[in-house]
């Protein structure tokens, strides 16, 4: 017994049980309602798109690591489900009319170029899912934005389903009279009768997931709420203080998915509370401003743009050590 050697490490010797993998699995669980509602609204084709996207993301990560001469066992042991989340988000943010190869390419791009080439989990500068979505949007513009398919469940309020050719937001932003009056806020919330991306149409499902994450303390719900509120209010301001625009601008497009699941990504948000508030307010302003200026859905572009400002925010907004205030005062006195 005397000669037995014990594990040697620095303190602390006890740690909280939560790991990166557990956090990412929780995010996957939180996205499950959105996947289910996407399948209900758009059929099995939607599920296939999501599944392919996830598979492509995971396969890309494994292939990259295998090429980097990591053993299969160690890859499996260190697999942290971040690529699963990326794949899910990309699958949820394409329309059901999209050809199957689009999410496959988008996920592969997101994982290999955006994440792995920068050093893997936590090292990426921008959010892989957002960038993958933009990659798909730009590379396959024609197939991504043409012929939006109406969901299986017709509108609860309006008589006819939304005409194809434009999602509600695009129609609203371009002030197409044919779209505006036909969509009620309730339909936008439930995703009934509204054409759009698989995971973005049913906002209730996304909000349920977000509340789960907030209760489980994975995300701080305050920040995405700031984002959504600022984006809505700024849209109202830009629309000449027309408050009827507030709810539609929040509930249409990818704002809810982007705010609660993409913008809250740990890696691409600042590290302080104040930094986060600044970041999410700016994000709201940029989103509303760009939406107004371009007339298309820009949540992902806004997130991508603001991701690049995160290191800057982190550089200037840091904590002051405990007991800092007094030294500051004495300094001021000296200067005075």
């Amino acid at each position, binding site marked *: *017994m005397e000669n037995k050697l014990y594990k040697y490490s620095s303190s602390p010797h*006890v740690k909280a049980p939560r790991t990166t993998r557990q956090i990412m699995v929780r995010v996957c669980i939180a996205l499950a309602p959105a996947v289910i509602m996407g399948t209900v609204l758009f059929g099995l084709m939607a599920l296939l798109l999501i599944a392919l996207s996830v598979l492509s993301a995971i396969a890309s990560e494994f292939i990259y690591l295998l090429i980097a001469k990591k053993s299969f066992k160690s890859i499996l042991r260190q697999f942290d489900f971040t690529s699963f989340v990326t794949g899910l988000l990309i699958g949820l943010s394409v329309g059901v009319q999209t050809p199957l190869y689009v999410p496959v390419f988008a996920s592969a791009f997101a994982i290999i170029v955006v994440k792995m080439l920068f050093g893997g989990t936590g090292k990426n500068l921008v959010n892989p899912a957002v960038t993958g979505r933009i990659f798909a949007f730009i590379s396959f513009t024609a197939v991504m934005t043409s012929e939006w398919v109406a969901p299986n469940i017709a509108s609860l309020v309006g008589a006819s389903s939304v005409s194809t050719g434009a999602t509600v937001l695009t129609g609203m932003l371009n002030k197409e009279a044919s779209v505006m009056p036909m969509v009620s806020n309730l339909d936008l919330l439930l995703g009934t009768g509204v054409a759009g991306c698989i995971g973005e149409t049913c906002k209730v499902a996304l909000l349920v997931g977000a509340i789960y994450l907030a209760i489980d303390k994975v995300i701080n719900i305050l920040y995405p709420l700031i984002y959504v509120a600022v984006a809505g209010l700024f849209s109202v301001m830009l629309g000449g203080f027309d408050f009827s625009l507030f709810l539609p601008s929040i509930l249409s497009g990818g704002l809810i998915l982007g705010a609660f699941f993409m913008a809250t990504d740990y890696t691409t948000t600042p590290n302080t509370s104040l930094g986060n508030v600044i970041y999410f307010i700016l994000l709201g302003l940029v989103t509303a401003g760009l939406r107004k200026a371009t007339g298309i859905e820009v949540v992902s572009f806004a997130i991508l743009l603001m991701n690049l400002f995160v290191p800057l925010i982190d550089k200037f907004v840091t904590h002051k050590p405990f007991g800092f205030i007094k030294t500051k005062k004495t300094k001021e006195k000296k200067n005075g």
Partner: protein
Amino acid sequence: MSIRKGKNYPYGIHVRDMKELCCDLPIENLPAPKKVYLSMSQHIGAPATPIVNVGDKVKKGQLVGQASGPVSANVYASIPGTVVGIEELVNGLGQKQLHVVIENDDSGEEILLPEIENRLGPTLIERIRLAGIVGLGGAGFPTAVKLTPKSQLEYLIINGAECEPYLNCDYRLMLERTDDIYKGIKYVAKALNVKKIILGIEENKPLAIEAFKIYEDLDIVILKKQYPMGSEKHLIYCTTNRKVPVGKMPFDVGVCVQNIKTMIACYEAIDLNKPLTEMVMTVSGKGIENPKNLKLALGTPLTDVVEYCGGIKERAIKLVAGGPMMGKALIGLNHYTRKTDSGLLVLIDGETNTAEPSNCINCAKCAKNCPMRLMPMFIESCALAGDFVGAKKYGAMNCLECGSCAYNCPAKRSLVQSISMAKNKIREMKL
């Protein structure tokens, strides 16, 4: 007497406290061991100089190590017997230290310090210095030095928070030796010439709070159960609403913080004329057969302690000297108890974390929880990249090494290790 709630401090963490393993067990006396190994550096500062030779007969309470400077402490024989060696031994922390080895002759002979002449401030401090008393909370800073501040202080704060999980020795002492602690506190207050005495106790120790209610002149502050409430700076903030400025010491804000065990040692040195030869230690963890609170002779080998507690379970994978948050891991049982060791933890797999660190995901939990309001992830990345100027800029030198950052890290990164490395490098390079 007054009882009030402490001020809220919003940062810090909540740790599973695991005190239930032995918090209801009274302190037991460990029988005197066959041999003791007295380290000459059981305190911060210069090591003591051995003043005995191999073959000398010593009595319990006889001086064997003489303090070798203003910041140093005397070491006394903790058992009667023969000095059988003065040698450099590697202890369980991997440190090579000079030890005086004494073999017990079971004579039971004990000598005391001379009777104290009077109970005036300077005499009391001189007695505390003579008795070799150091901060027994874990820091090991010679108490007499702490009691001679440059300016008059306003508060004496007694730290009864014991925020470290598992450890119960302060709690047990507060219940079992309430009166001795009170007497010790009064002597120290007299030595410091301080009128206001605050006793800070965490709210999870209602019995201890109850026990101290009877003393009219103690101001009891009930602290929230939060880690690290026992940190000097946070204790001062929560009890007196004073912030110790960055880079300053508690006496700069007119406060002296003392530990419960130190108070008992002071009482024994002054009233009973006993030098510091004993210590109280919690032996706990799921890897030990019978967790216990023990009173034992300084320098007792851990093998004796473990044997008394029923031995170590096969599943045990880690030994810790001190608490699980700030204590040091031990390589093996070749360790000899020192004044500052307040616990021996034997942890099993699952209880202690063995996960390999993965990439930082920037979740900012470390920065959110840091009680010193630092940015641990930036300090770590600077330290690992060798940028110690950057590490200093992010406040590495203010780090308490309390482990709040690493406790909650989902990537299980060794933040404390990197920050501690950065601190050492910054000191070395005099940045």
